[in-house]
């Protein structure tokens, strides 16, 4: 049986060859670059990494990237979870309308959305105008060209990515369990927190992790909405190449980013497997 399966696999794998070739085309060059990051002046060396440790600006950039991703992920969970739950509990028509409201930004280009937030949050933009009109502030707030503006833009981009899978995970939950808890005397709040939330745990966890990991790699939004006041890892990598043609420094920083991303994805997967085995 296994041998027959293997024979069948041997016959079908060439069908996947073009796909594998293309994925290799875009991924292998970075593998090559990451090897080169351990070479300086023609010999094996950690010079590219030593420079990162010595130069405090690199640490600031790495910390800023982690901080930005954490802030965005926390807000996305806080806003996205109740939204997915709300959609889940609506009638079919309301749910469809709400899902369309999530789908429209999802299908709108990231660049267009970032541009829109630049306009909305600018110094004499809509938000500042309204806040001044209702007398909440006297002078315009620094909403764009800042950490705050970058966070708002990224939250907007990540929300649909978080809501859609979480909503489908919630749909899989057996609501009879919640009803059973209610009929056994649990209050609504208790049934929600002690039955529904734990059942949605795996979906919530996977979505949060994916949000955080994707945030670590953002480039366009921090570049445009940060206005030079927010430098994340991706921006520094681009700058090292475009402005200084410093492939060693760019690749070393890229390796750091890759290690964090891969470490999170693989480490958490292992943790999940262990928890499930228990």
């Amino acid at each position: 049986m296994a041998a027959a399966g293997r024979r069948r696999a041997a016959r079908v794998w060439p069908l996947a060859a073009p796909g594998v070739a293309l994925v290799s085309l875009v991924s292998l060059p970075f593998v090559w670059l990451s090897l080169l990051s351990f070479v300086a002046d023609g010999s094996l060396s950690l010079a590219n990494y030593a420079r990162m440790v010595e130069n405090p600006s690199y640490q600031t950039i790495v910390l800023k990237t982690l901080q930005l991703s954490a802030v965005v992920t926390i807000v996305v969970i806080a806003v996205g979870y109740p939204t997915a739950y709300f959609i889940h509990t609506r009638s079919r028509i309301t749910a469809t309308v709400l899902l369309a409201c999530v789908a429209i930004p999802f299908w709108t280009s990231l660049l267009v959305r970032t541009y829109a937030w630049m306009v909305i949050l600018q110094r004499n933009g809509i938000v500042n105008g309204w806040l001044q009109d209702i007398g909440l502030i006297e002078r315009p707030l620094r909403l764009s060209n800042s950490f705050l503006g970058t966070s708002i833009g990224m939250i907007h981009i990540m929300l649909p990515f978080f809501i859609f899978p979480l909503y489908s995970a919630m749909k899989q939950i057996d609501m009879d369990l919640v009803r059973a808890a209610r009929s056994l005397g649990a209050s609504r709040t208790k049934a929600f927190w002690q039955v529904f939330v734990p059942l949605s745990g795996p979906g919530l966890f996977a979505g949060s992790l994916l949000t955080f990991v994707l945030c670590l790699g953002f480039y366009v939004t921090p570049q445009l909405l940060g206005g030079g006041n927010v430098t994340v890892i991706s921006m520094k990598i681009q700058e090292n190449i475009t402005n200084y043609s410093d492939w060693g420094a760019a690749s070393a920083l890229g390796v750091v980013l890759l290690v964090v991303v891969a470490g999170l994805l693989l480490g958490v997967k292992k943790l999940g497997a262990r928890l499930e085995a228990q």
Partner: protein
Amino acid sequence: MKRVERTLGSRIGDYWLNPFAIVVVIFLLAPVFVVIPMSFSDSNYLEFPPRVWSLRWYHAYFDSREWMAATRTSLLAAFSTVLLATPIGFFAAYAIRNMAGRAGGILFGLLLLPQVAPVILLAIGVFFLYIRLHLVNSLIGIVLAHTALAVPFVVTTVSAGLKRFDFRLDQAARSLGASRLRAIRDVMLPQIRLSLIAGAIFAFVTSLDEVVVSLFIAGGDNTVLTRKMFLALRDQVDPTIAAISTLLIIVSVVVVGVFMIVSQRNVRRHNDNA
């Protein structure tokens, strides 16, 4: 009965979730509802709501040779990406489905790599390779890179479609003498058509919206639209971009909207028949 069930299970957050949901919807739709009206403004500045309406920025876009050239390149790249990524992704998903044991899972993970890897790493890698291959700023280079980024989406959507496909039908067709390709074309494709079209739409949008890789490899004579927009935005906020953004929003909303309506109708017809 249905209504009673809903009430029992889920009235917990009703009181505060309603205003909350309204705020979230406003937040989600704000960019679209700001950019579209603003693109019809007559002002040099970005004012909202516009005081005088005009098509000035659409003229600025359609009359600009540079913007038109970038649009042509983008559309050419996007359609080529669809033509390449859809069959490549389909056959990869087909292979995954037919592999025994863990091989399929490993291949699936491998093909999804471009989706989870930070795009800046892929971008500098491709740039590094293309410098050596003299493919920087070439259309073929752009299309190959975009196809690689689009393949994971096609693999995901087609795999979901194949999960619902009954492979005994494929076996039946082949035991009756159909070749593998004939069985795919006449038996499988009609049934997974919607997944395939969804994959193709994803491929189109992936290419059309791609910024970071294009920033490195899609300049010169083959500048793509998003690259030109990005560079323009870095210098100043030009209202022409509001007009282009509106057109991009319309393209994606119309394409996806039509697909959703068609697929809903198909699902309903399927349910009626069943």
